[in-house]
């Protein structure tokens, strides 16, 4: 694209490429249209967009992996001057060695569970014959060494490896093709924060040392800006921005890019706010955004609600009045296999969730935060220690009292796509808890159901009540999940990573909703997350968990601004941040 690039320096040249989805019996959809760009040798380019923007579809097209119902509708992909868009399957297959490779989004499942890692390498060597029989073992060891894995990993099966190790193996496998172009499709999305950071570093170093051209596809603009030199932003199948990373950060051209950027913030900063969510403690002014975001109507709506201008009021006398007191709680699980040590998931944790307070429980996966949530909701019983809620002894709760506990303590789950029964309408889903916990029937139950929908901002309510989950977007589903949690008029809401599955632009809206519930309804909230930015936005207190134990606690702002524990500092450093640069 740039004038300084000579023809020989261009590895990939995409001209007017379009990809069409042609589902049987459905209207064809243009997932990608008019994509035009060049990639120079050794470039590291980011491709950013939210779900449905067509970024993965483009990535699959570039590596010749478009499968029905997707089809390349037009345009050309010149790889080293040869058009691969219309190439036969076998010609493409041969091209892959020394050509283009791809590392998949869910690298967790990219390995054949019944084939050893060694055989994965040997299959590739055999398919292309580029490594002689005698050299294969040595080459495989060399390749896993490049992704910082020991040679012993070759004897393992994918089920015996951690998520990070599997993704490293996938990268090594892709490298074994000796590709000139590597496409990474969300390579770290499914991984834990700290692991994510480490894998990303490996990718960066490999790109430098091996000198391949790399495309990093991600929903996370912050990470892409930190890692790559050039950024392409996709929106509704169009590349809306294609400029050097530094320029994108300083002067984003397209409103969509500006909107994406506006949702980043540094949890360590003095004042943290994103559109739709004002800084905590600051006076809620109607216009809080420092960046104009006419792009997300949803956050305007959420902001309005946060100010308490609409939505139903809580029924009388039901504001949170009882604290959850957790004292000296430990949970030990029996060893996963015989001969191993028992697993200490939670180790001597104590805290009090005051009525109406909002507290964050932060930690990487395996830190015990979800186990704590399970114990508070009575799903699991602690091995030692006590949990009380009002006069309820939660740690020894019996089936009979569970219903009372669940009337007062409700969960919002992480994955809105699996938290709703796909066969039931929103009305049915919401009416069940209203009938079970609230004891309302018939017309009253229906009125309450519609009120709840209004509270979570799903208007017009009558229309949303009749819908099935698949007719809702991710953000709308999560609002239904929140409405369901509110149905019993609880005092406490436990939100387990409520926005981690949602697109950036939808997160602020859902977070604002949770925050406003606390303000207008007086619900206490335990907010479980690995995302420190959102913790900073919606909570006043924070507890950092590492391997089951609390390593740091205090007021959210001061803990994040002046972290004392090394683990908290590592968590903060692992957050990709566009302003850090590279």
């Amino acid at each position, binding site marked *: 694209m740039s004038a300084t690039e000579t023809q020989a320096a261009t590895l990939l040249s995409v001209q007017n490429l379009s990809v069409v989805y042609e589902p049987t019996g459905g209207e064809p959809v243009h997932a990608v249209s008019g994509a035009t760009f060049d990639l120079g040798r050794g470039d590291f380019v980011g491709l950013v967009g939210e779900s449905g923007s067509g970024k993965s579809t483009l990535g699959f097209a570039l*590596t010749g*992996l478009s*499968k029905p119902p997707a089809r390349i509708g037009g345009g050309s992909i010149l790889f080293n001057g040869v058009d691969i868009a219309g190439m036969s*399957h076998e010609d*493409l*297959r*041969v*091209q*892959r*060695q020394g050509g283009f*490779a*791809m590392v*998949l*989004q*869910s*690298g967790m*499942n*990219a*390995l*054949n*569970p*019944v*084939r*050893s890692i060694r055989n994965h390498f040997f*299959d*590739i060597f*055999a*398919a*292309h014959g580029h490594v002689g029989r005698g050299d294969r073992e040595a080459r495989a060891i060399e390749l896993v060494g490049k992704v910082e894995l020991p040679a012993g990993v070759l004897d393992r*099966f994918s*089920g015996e490896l951690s998520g990070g190790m599997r993704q490293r193996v*996938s990268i090594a*496998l*892709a490298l*074994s*093709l000796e590709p000139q172009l590597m496409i990474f499709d969300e390579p770290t999305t499914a991984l834990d924060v700290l692991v994510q950071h480490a894998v990303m570093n490996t990718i960066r170093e490999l790109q430098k040392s091996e000198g391949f051209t790399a495309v990093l596809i991600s929903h996370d603009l912050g990470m892409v800006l930190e890692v790559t030199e050039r950024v392409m932003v996709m929106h509704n199948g169009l590349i809306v921005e294609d400029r050097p990373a530094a320029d994108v950060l300083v002067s984003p051209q397209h409103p969509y890019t500006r909107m994406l950027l506006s949702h980043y913030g540094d949890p360590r900063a003095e004042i943290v706010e994103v559109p739709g969510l004002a800084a905590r403690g600051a006076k809620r002014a109607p216009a809080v955004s420092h960046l104009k975001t006419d792009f997300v109507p949803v956050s305007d709506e959420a902001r309005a609600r946060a100010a308490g201008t609409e939505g139903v009021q809580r029924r009388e006398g039901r504001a949170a009045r009882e604290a959850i007191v957790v004292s000296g709680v430990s949970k030990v699980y029996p060893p996963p*296999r015989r001969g191993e040590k028992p697993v200490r998931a939670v180790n001597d944790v104590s805290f009090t969730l005051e009525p109406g307070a909002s507290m964050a429980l932060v930690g990487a996966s395996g830190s015990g935060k979800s186990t704590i949530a399970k114990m508070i909701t009575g799903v699991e019983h602690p091995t030692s220690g006590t949990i009380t809620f009002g006069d309820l002894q939660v740690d020894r709760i019996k089936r009979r009292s569970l219903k009372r506990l669940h009337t007062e303590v409700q969960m919002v789950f992480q994955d809105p796509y699996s938290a709703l029964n796909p066969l039931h309408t929103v009305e049915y889903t919401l009416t069940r808890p209203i009938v079970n916990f609230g004891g309302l029937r018939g017309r009253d139950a229906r009125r309450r159901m519609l009120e709840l929908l209004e509270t979570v901002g799903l208007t017009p309510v009558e229309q949303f009540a009749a819908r099935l989950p698949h007719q809702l977007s991710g953000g709308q589903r999560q609002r239904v999940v929140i409405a369901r949690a509110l149905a019993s008029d609880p005092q406490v809401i436990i939100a387990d990573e409520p926005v981690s599955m949602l697109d950036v632009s939808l997160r602020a809206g859902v977070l604002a909703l949770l925050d406003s519930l606390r303000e207008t309804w007086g619900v206490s909230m335990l907010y479980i997350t690995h995302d420190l930015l959102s913790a900073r936005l919606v909570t006043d207190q924070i507890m950092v968990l590492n391997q089951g134990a609390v390593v740091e606690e205090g007021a959210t702002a001061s803990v994040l601004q002046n972290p004392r524990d090394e683990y908290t500092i590592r968590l903060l450093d692992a957050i990709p941040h566009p302003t850090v640069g590279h």
Partner: protein
Amino acid sequence: MRFVFTKLGLLLLTLWAAVTLNFLLPRLMPGSPADAALAKLAQNGPVSPATRAAVEAQLGVPTGSMFDQYLQYLGNVATFDFGVSYTFFPQPVAGLVAAALPWTLVLVGLVTIIAFIFGTLLGVLAAWKRGTWLDTLPTVGGTFASAFPYFWTALLLLFFLGYVAGWFPTSGAYGRGTTPEFSVEFLLDAIYHAILPATTILITSLGGWILGMRSTMINTLGDDYVTFAEANGLRPRTVAIRYAARNAILPNLTSFGLALGGVVGGSLLVERVFAYPGVGYLLYTAVTNQDFPLMQALFLIITISVLLANFIVDILYGILDPRTRR
């Protein structure tokens, strides 16, 4: 290796439980075989105590405590002593079963295995060439053929190929003039007699295997490791067999185990229709004649065959799926 021993231990435990239940169940039932025999005699007039003693002596009324009987029973089972058949008096039950078992194992067992292998291969092909005639033909054909009731297919074949055309014999496992021996003529004769029943089993069971394998294979074809294998430029055949089919077969092994376990017990219908001298036919005879010793032995054989089939499938899983080996 520990995996095999664990499974073997489990097999022996269930075997012991099955044998014990087989001992207990008849004793928990009211009455005795002697009562049943006497009741029949009583229809013709009063039965004298002497007759009763004679019948009881003939049938062998158990003596000693329950535990002694149990030990004796275990000993008998271990030495394959299942008593004397009522129907084929005075032939020992063990001999009858031993004569019938090979016919069933070879005919039904072999055909079940062949149907599984053949159906699985067709299912792989159908999924891999989805939408082509290689998919449509086996899928539609298999559904059509397996939709017929088993005995109806058997009767159709018997009537047209056996009776009308006269190409195949309509009953028995070998010709009337021959006796079982290891000679080429006898083997050919036995195969000739097995063709119709074997075809029936094949026709009715093939469709299920094709459809089962096809649907699991289509699922694995959408899995990430298949896409990744393609992205790495593996040969299509490697992707189809070692990546997709290799994983797709795992859930079908369970149904294979069930089918294999059902071979001995489930052969009743086919052997009845074709008058084939296997275990199923024997069971039919035993039940219609209230031949208790024979029935009890056959039930035990059926149980053991189910357990053995499950054991074999467990071991197969261990070989094919590294995740189960732990």
